[in-house]
């Protein structure tokens, strides 16, 4: 049986369990019908990779913002109107790629992910293959994503094991001087923010 089929069956089992739990809570009046949908919809309405892209573009054009972002990312993103208060006590941390240092994010224990800044996580991020391999052989995994790192580039893998969520601050692409922030934001990809693409 392939790993994909195995993941799929397990996720179906979990979905069924959640459905039964929600229905039991509704039956006992702990949860109002549709209340959960409203909360999830409201949250996802504002949870999109556009947020992460905007943060990166601002850091590229404003060195002082970048310094604040690397020091206390939760406070820095609040400055540009991204509200993380629903997330408390979880904190955001941004890690910076440089010419000699590449960063990549994973959650080996489950699938922790900065949904508020990147939207819902891609299926591969939650797969056992990515979670187990990226800490052991990040270069090999990144190469499969089409990102061949120079051999002298050091790789740091950030395993989101607890109360911090991570985003990668990619390097600004060359020949982008003077371009407006909105154009720069459009250059950033979701995978760039996870570290599985260069930008």
């Amino acid at each position: 049986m392939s790993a994909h089929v195995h993941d799929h069956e397990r996720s179906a089992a979990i979905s069924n369990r959640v459905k039964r739990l929600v229905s039991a809570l509704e039956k006992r009046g702990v949860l109002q019908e549709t209340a959960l949908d409203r909360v999830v919809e409201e949250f996802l309405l504002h949870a999109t990779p556009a947020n992460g892209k905007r943060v990166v573009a601002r850091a590229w054009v404003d060195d002082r913002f970048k310094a604040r972002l690397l020091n206390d990312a939760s406070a820095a993103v609040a400055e540009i109107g991204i509200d993380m208060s629903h997330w408390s006590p979880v904190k955001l941390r941004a890690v910076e790629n440089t010419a000699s240092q590449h960063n990549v994010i994973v959650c080996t224990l489950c699938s922790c992910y900065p949904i508020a800044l990147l939207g819902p996580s891609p299926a591969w991020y939650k797969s056992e293959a990515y979670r187990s391999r990226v800490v052991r052989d990040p270069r090999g995994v990144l190469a499969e994503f089409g990102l061949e790192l120079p051999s002298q580039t050091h790789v740091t893998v950030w395993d989101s094991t607890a109360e911090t969520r991570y985003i990668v601050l990619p390097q600004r692409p060359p020949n982008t001087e003077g371009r407006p922030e909105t154009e720069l934001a459009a250059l950033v990809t979701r995978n760039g923010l996870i570290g599985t693409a260069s930008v």
Partner: protein
Amino acid sequence: MTFEPGERVRTRNDNPEGHTRLPAYLRAREGCVVRSLGAFPFPDERSKGNRGAAAVMLYTVRFEGPTVWGAGGEGLAICADLFEPYLEKLS
């Protein structure tokens, strides 16, 4: 016990029956504290239904690749956020 950034630590070699947020691949490994993240309720206790579990300090700890994977880990580092009870001071 509290730790300061720059301090060397070793993760415990525990394999508890219940929930833990110490990944197995980082058990009994030496690393270096890079950031103190503040105090949070200890998940290993909360998972037992103890909602009043005491808050314990949480740290970002950096492990050099070869410490975790041997020679195959050259050019690699792993950072993980680990609770104080998982850590022992290295003298």
